[in-house]
């Protein structure tokens, strides 16, 4: 209907420019319109206070406006309006028809695969119509782009869609070919990063419109999908690890699904979840023990529910490097106390952590335990960078701030900020506010603003209360089941003492509160990140009662301290910290390697020589030079392609001259045939956006009748400029009739002759 009224398809108007062919100047048109309006308005103005017939004021103005509109339209027609639009020269341009050949196109919908829907559309005259106007080049695309001669070559067996890469390749080819437009058939299900801005800009620069044809259902009837799993890529042996699982479901609201975490064939943890509203992303946390040191291939899966249309999107894989290193923690305590003994005992049961302690037994004597050599800590708390930075964490018990020299205090700060270590402050007669820490140089990096008063340490009973953040934190997980964990915390015996820790700073997280039996509630365990490291406050020295007053078999005390201290040191980096954005390359080859390289004092090292020695499947080995990132001193990066599916180990080595300054190991795995299982619903939003950004249009696969006509209007390829008259549009005559008819009717109604 609209096309009848306006004579041309909408594309002509959206792509064309309005021109006036009359030759007379535009200002004259405007002048005549204004002059005419004034001339018509003068008699109306004169009679503004009089009643003409039954019309006065507003009614007269309406009649005047109709007359003006009529006059303006007639004058415009005299100037001969037209649309100037570029269109492709027949038979001189290429239209690239790209068909998604990935496995998601093989999904069955209403008895037909998506691929068959596409082939059906192409065979039912579309190709023929396109062929009459253009040279048609057929491509299939998935992981790579291939030109095909016959539609039979499209098999829906490819691993990933890679819309961006393949579009970019077609656009690059068009630099030497007159590609006038791209028609892309796809479900838009791209799990390799979508269409990047660079590709869109390339298409825009070359003015190639991408007309997208959406295939596949936009919403499944019944499906459960794990859309993402986040977990730490590296963890200390025997640590608890959390998998943050994001789920999406259709048609299964309120049903129960079982999430499982497996390493190989052994199940590490499982839990039931109730599915939330359709289409919403639901986050669930599954906690499990990472087990012994070694590379772990972890899979997180949801059991397939009855009637699921796509059972292949219920499992996601990740690689976790369970590290065998044993971080060392320096614990300085100001006076003998039971907490000291029981913390030591908790750590002794941990095969991973090492504790070196120095205890002030008398005013002038320090008792050392857990030292590696007689000279370690012999002269007291370390005063040199290399001595202190040899540890991964520090615990400062009830020691007054004044016990440390200004240089030592600065070292402690740098230990967190620069070295990336963890510092934990404990309560005590000489701890926190009582020890003057609130007014020390350390006040900057404490997670709390300590109270500016004395008498904050109380040897009175206090129960513990887990906060919401504490319920979610691995530090406080005494049971892998979240509900049982909360119950367990409620049953913990009271603490022997507590200390008022003040107010948590913005950015700090309170995990546990102390609720004294006498009064109030105070933050007990508060953590925050500072610089590259982390700082915590544990405002009690009385958790030893958890050990002494609970049955021997209860491991709450040991578990809590082991987990708190693992948090303290787990992320403390070495001189080289290697990372990659993705540990599992799902149908991808490109790996970005990154290394943060520091010198012996943990200052960014810009003059290092950094290489990655990569060992791949079947023993393939390659050495990759990593280059410095100009924007981030000390950071080195390299991009590399994992040519074969399988497991890869990259050992990243930093040297200064011939001297090695540090190394780190990184693991990743390439998996093929995975990505297409996910995001299999038609991503209409992506297809529409791609079309609109490039000047194309989105079509449904079963409604392509206008495509051959609309595709002609393009500024790419070999074009011709067409001028299309507008004066003879039916809409113009309709407008004239409507305006005159309306005026006539109103005059009759209002008695204005």
């Amino acid at each position, binding site marked *: 209907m609209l096309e009848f009224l306006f004579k041309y398809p909408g594309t002509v108007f959206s792509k064309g420019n309005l021109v006036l062919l009359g030759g007379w100047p535009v200002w004259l048109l405007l002048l005549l319109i204004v002059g005419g309006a004034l001339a018509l308005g003068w008699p109306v103005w004169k009679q503004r206070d009089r009643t003409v017939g039954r019309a006065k004021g507003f009614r007269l103005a309406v009649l005047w406006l109709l007359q003006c509109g009529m006059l303006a339209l007639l004058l415009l027609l005299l100037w001969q309006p037209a649309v100037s639009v570029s269109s492709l020269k027949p038979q001189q341009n290429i239209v690239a028809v790209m068909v998604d050949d990935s496995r998601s196109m093989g999904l069955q919908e209403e008895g037909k695969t998506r691929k068959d829907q596409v082939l059906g559309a192409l065979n039912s005259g579309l190709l023929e119509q396109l062929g009459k106007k253009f040279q048609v080049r057929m491509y299939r695309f998935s992981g790579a782009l291939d030109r095909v001669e016959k539609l039979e070559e499209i098999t829906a067996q490819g691993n990933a869609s890679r819309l961006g890469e393949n579009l970019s390749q077609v656009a690059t080819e068009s630099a030497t070919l007159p590609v006038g437009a791209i028609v892309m058939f796809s479900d838009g299900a791209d799990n390799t990063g979508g269409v990047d801005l660079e590709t869109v800009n390339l298409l825009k620069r070359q003015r190639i419109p991408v007309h997208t044809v959406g295939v596949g259902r936009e919403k499944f009837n019944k499906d459960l999908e794990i859309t993402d799993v986040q977990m730490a890529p590296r963890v200390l042996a025997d640590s608890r690890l959390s998998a943050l699982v994001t789920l999406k479901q259709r048609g299964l609201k309120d049903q129960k699904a079982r999430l499982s975490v497996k390493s190989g064939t052994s199940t590490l943890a499982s839990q039931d979840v109730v599915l939330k509203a359709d289409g919403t992303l639901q986050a669930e946390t599954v906690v499990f023990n990472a087990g012994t040191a070694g590379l772990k291939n972890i899979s997180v899966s949801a059991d397939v529910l009855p009637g699921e249309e796509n059972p292949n999107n219920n499992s996601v894989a990740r690689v976790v490097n369970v590290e065998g290193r044993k971080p060392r923690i320096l614990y300085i305590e100001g006076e*003998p106390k039971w907490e000291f*003994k029981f913390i030591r005992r908790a750590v002794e049961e941990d095969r991973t952590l090492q504790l070196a302690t120095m*205890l002030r037994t008398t005013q002038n004597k320090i008792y050392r335990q857990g030292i590696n050599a007689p000279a370690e800590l012999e002269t007291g708390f370390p005063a040199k960078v290399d001595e202190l930075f040899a540890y991964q964490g520090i615990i400062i018990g009830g020691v007054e701030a004044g016990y440390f020299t200004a240089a030592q205090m600065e070292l402690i700060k740098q230990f967190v900020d620069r070295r990336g270590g963890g510092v934990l402050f404990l309560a005590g007669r000489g701890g926190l506010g009582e020890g003057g820490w609130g007014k020390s140089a350390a006040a900057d990096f404490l997670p709390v603003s300590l109270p500016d008063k004395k008498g904050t340490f109380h*040897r009175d009973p206090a129960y513990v209360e887990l906060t919401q953040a504490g319920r979610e934190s691995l530090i406080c997980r005494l049971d892998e089941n979240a509900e049982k964990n909360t119950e367990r915390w409620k049953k913990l015996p009271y603490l022997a003492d507590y200390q008022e820790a003040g107010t948590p700073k913005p950015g700090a997280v309170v995990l546990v509160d102390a609720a004294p039996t006498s009064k109030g509630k105070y933050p007990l365990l508060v953590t925050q990140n500072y610089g590259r490291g982390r700082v915590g406050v544990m405002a009690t020295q009385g958790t030893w009662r958890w050990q002494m007053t609970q049955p021997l078999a209860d491991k709450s005390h040991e578990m809590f301290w082991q987990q708190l201290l693992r948090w303290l040191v787990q992320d403390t980096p070495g001189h080289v910290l290697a990372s990659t954005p993705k540990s599992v390359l799902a149908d991808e080859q490109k790996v970005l390697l990154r290394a943060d390289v520091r010198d012996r004092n943990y200052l960014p090292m810009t003059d290092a020589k950094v290489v990655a020695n990569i060992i791949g499947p079947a023993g393939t080995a390659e050495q990759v030079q990593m280059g410095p990132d100009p924007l981030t001193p000390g950071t080195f990066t390299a991009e590399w392609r994992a040519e074969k599916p399988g497991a890869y180990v990259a050992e990243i080595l930093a040297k200064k001259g011939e001297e090695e300054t540090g190394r780190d190991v990184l693991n990743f795995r390439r998996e093929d045939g995975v990505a297409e299982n996910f995001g299999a619903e038609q991503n209409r939003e992506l297809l529409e956006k791609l079309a609109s950004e490039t000047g194309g249009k989105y079509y449904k696969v079963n409604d392509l009748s206008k495509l051959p006509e609309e595709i002609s209007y393009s500024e790419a390829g070999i074009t011709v400029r067409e001028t299309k008259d507008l004066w003879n549009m039916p809409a113009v005559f309709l407008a004239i009739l409507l305006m005159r008819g309306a005026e006539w009717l109103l005059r009759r109604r209002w008695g204005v002759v």
Partner: protein
Amino acid sequence: MLVRKAVMVLVGAMTLISASYAFQRARSFFEEDEANIPLPPDANEKTEYTFARLRYPSFRGGAAYWSARGNWTVDYPKADRQFVQGVRRLSRIHTKSVETVVDLETDEIFNYPWVYVVEAGHWDLPEAQTKKLREYLLRGGFLMTDDFHGTFEWDIFTASMSRVFPDRPIVDIENKDAIFHVLYDLDERFQVPGIIMFYSGRTYEYDGIEAKWRGIYDDNGRIMVAVCHNMDLGDAWEWADHPRYPERYASLAYRVGINYIIYAMTH
């Protein structure tokens, strides 16, 4: 024959007179044990460490004078109070100025991870108490036993202790063990006598001629029970201020006691 009888009567009379004198002197020391020592002004201060004395059922309860109020009360409370003064002065341990008494009938003992047992050669723990003591020690509690002497009292001590830990031997603590070095280096230890030395002139009692520094270890090589056999550290603490009690014994007793506390707070 008459002469012989007269000598025997004389000897007997002398023995009786001596024993009576000794008993009276002992009574005077004992009465000092029981003396109503006023509480120090800071007795209610809340501290980290409290000297906890174990109240236990006595073997042959009531048969001996000391058992009249229980063997566990020997030297109580003077020894405890004098000892903690030393702990306060010589270390950074935040110490309560008065002792507390705990037993194995309630769970209160679990609030005191260091417990002292005097006259352990006279205890007789019922089954339930041996189980509780075992649990206490395995959770992390520390027990110091003192002031029992000779084979006979050793056998009584081990009769109960072997029911606490049927599977763990009582062994000599080696010189190199941390318990003898945690604060003071105690490589040269000697027998610390009780006040009986004033009358007998000997540093030992019964057949307990040689001081034994023994212990029971846990699976991680930590001492749970420190057994001070054939010595009387409690008396040394109690009479450290007595002009007749040699300083060297008192000093060693204090050092051992403080080492044992710090060991219990660090291991």
